[in-house]
């Protein structure tokens, strides 16, 4: 492949870095407010871990919207389904989960996560074909149909598993914290951060370094032209939708382990959270979604520490503040 050195200066567009600086500035601003460095480090680590989990859950939603102009109000259902499926694996292997060996734990955890992703991905296929296909291009009906889908999914979970909360204990080797001096960082949070970052980097690599990613980015901008170049975008979309659903499932498992419990109503709670994140990030923007997730988690953690009462409405306040600054979110996607 030709790699040509540019002979003339390229008119590089200015990179919009203000949103990237935002969480950094917020974190730095909190050092004096929180006072103790160790608390600050703990809270920051907690924020990043939580942010990564939220990002994993929200990324599919924002990508699907950007690519196909479909807003799935039922995205939260994939999260709950993922979590429930994981309990299916956890229950019979409770002994392995509690074994004090990382390898044994992972031998249960990894298949559980994979199965969850497979099931929620498959569910994504069904949802796209049944609920979304008939209402492309009609926002109002999309909202109504997918809301209906959310109810049905949630109620089915109740019917199958009952209304009780199912405990989902952390595997033994992931309990406890890493202690660095007087800073304690929970082991599971480190894992969550690691997985979240891996997912983010993977998404970025796919989007920027592969032809598939180019297709997705091009499709976000102009679906017709991608088709006119000879690519079957419907299949591409279905693939993205299923990937997004599978990621939601993965996020569900991680969230369940974080809370150490599973409940059908978790989809409601998380739907709101991921909506706030994708609104803040700018509908359709992966980078915005990533920053938005971290911001939401930071506000929740720092806010919860400083002004516990405020934590209840902190998301809304954050959203209002961001939208006053940028009415279409941090990174507005150009085509809409």
């Amino acid at each position: 492949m030709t790699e040509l050195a540019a002979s003339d200066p390229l008119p590089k567009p200015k990179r919009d870095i203000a949103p990237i600086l935002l969480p950094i500035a917020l974190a730095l601003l909190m050092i004096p407010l929180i006072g103790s460095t160790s608390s600050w480090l703990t809270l920051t680590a907690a924020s990043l871990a939580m942010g990564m989990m939220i990002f994993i859950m929200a990324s599919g939603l924002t990508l699907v919207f950007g690519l196909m102009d479909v807003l799935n109000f039922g995205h939260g259902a994939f999260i709950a389904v993922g979590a429930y499926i994981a309990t299916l694996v956890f229950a019979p292997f409770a002994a392995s989960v509690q074994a004090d060996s990382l390898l044994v734990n992972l031998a249960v955890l990894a298949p559980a996560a994979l199965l969850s992703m497979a099931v929620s991905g498959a569910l994504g296929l069904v949802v796209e074909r049944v609920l979304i296909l008939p209402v492309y291009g009609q926002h109002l009906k999309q909202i109504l149909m997918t809301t209906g889908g959310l109810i049905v999914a949630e109620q089915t979970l109740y019917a199958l598993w009952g209304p009780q909360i199912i405990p989902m204990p952390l595997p033994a080797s992931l309990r406890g914290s890493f202690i660095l001096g007087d800073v304690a960082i929970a082991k599971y949070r480190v894992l969550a951060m690691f997985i979240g970052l891996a997912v983010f980097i993977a998404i970025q690599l796919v989007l920027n370094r592969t032809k598939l990613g180019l297709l997705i980015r091009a499709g976000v901008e102009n679906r017709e032209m991608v088709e006119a170049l000879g690519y079957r975008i419907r299949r591409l979309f279905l693939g993205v939708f299923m990937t997004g659903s599978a990621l939601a499932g993965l996020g569900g498992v991680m969230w369940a382990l974080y809370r150490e419990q599973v409940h059908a109503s978790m989809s409601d709670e998380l739907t709101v959270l991921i909506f706030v994140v994708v609104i803040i990030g700018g509908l359709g923007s992966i980078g915005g979604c990533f920053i938005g997730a971290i911001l939401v988690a930071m506000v929740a953690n720092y806010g919860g520490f400083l002004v516990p009462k405020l934590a209840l409405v902190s998301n809304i306040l954050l959203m209002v503040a961001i939208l006053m600054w940028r009415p279409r979110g941090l990174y507005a996607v150009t085509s809409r």
Partner: protein
Amino acid sequence: MTDLLKLSGVHTNIGRYHILQGIDLAVPQGQVTMLLGRNGAGKTTTLRTIMGLWQASSGEITFGSERIESRATPDIARLGVGYVPESMAVFSDLTVKENLVLAARDGPLDDTQLDWIFGFFPALRRFWLSRAGSLSGGQKQMLSIARAIIEPRKLLLIDEPTKGLAPAIVMALIECLKEIKRKGATILLVEQNFFAARELGDSVLVMDNGTIVHRGEMADLAADVPLQERLLGLSLEAHQ
């Protein structure tokens, strides 16, 4: 000479609008066929219907030996049809390189083909790694055309490539299209710039109100000023 593309009795409705009202046309192999006509005559709709972006409500479209009127756009593209839309539709978020990588559907970019394209449009080499969105209108048009010819296509559908371009760029474009034609491509070209049309066209079709109102040799139309005026609604008084 065989016809590469043939439309017979094609009607297209968009919503409640009956835009194409029975189009019969043939694009001979290896020629540049001009499609002229005033705004709203249905030229763009004709190209979009061929490309499958709008579904013909009736009629037949034959490409080579295949019937394509009910095929999906990607399948039509894969038969070897390149499309340069009126809006250029470059992917502005992608770099020039990435735009071309996508356009080279079946493999990596071919260096000789690329050098050939750079020969016409040096700007593309210069802005190889820039976002397409930062290009000027003319450069976007070049990219859009480059995208359609980066791999050999049997048929090119090009919609008003000179629209809104400065004269010097128009000249470069005309040269490029002539070269593509020499290489054996078949082109159906929508154009409002009559001089560009005269330079390039072998045969000509004129549309009005969703039908073809004139078909003939480009040279004949170019010589017949009253006919031009009648068909295109343009006044050429100043040249008399």
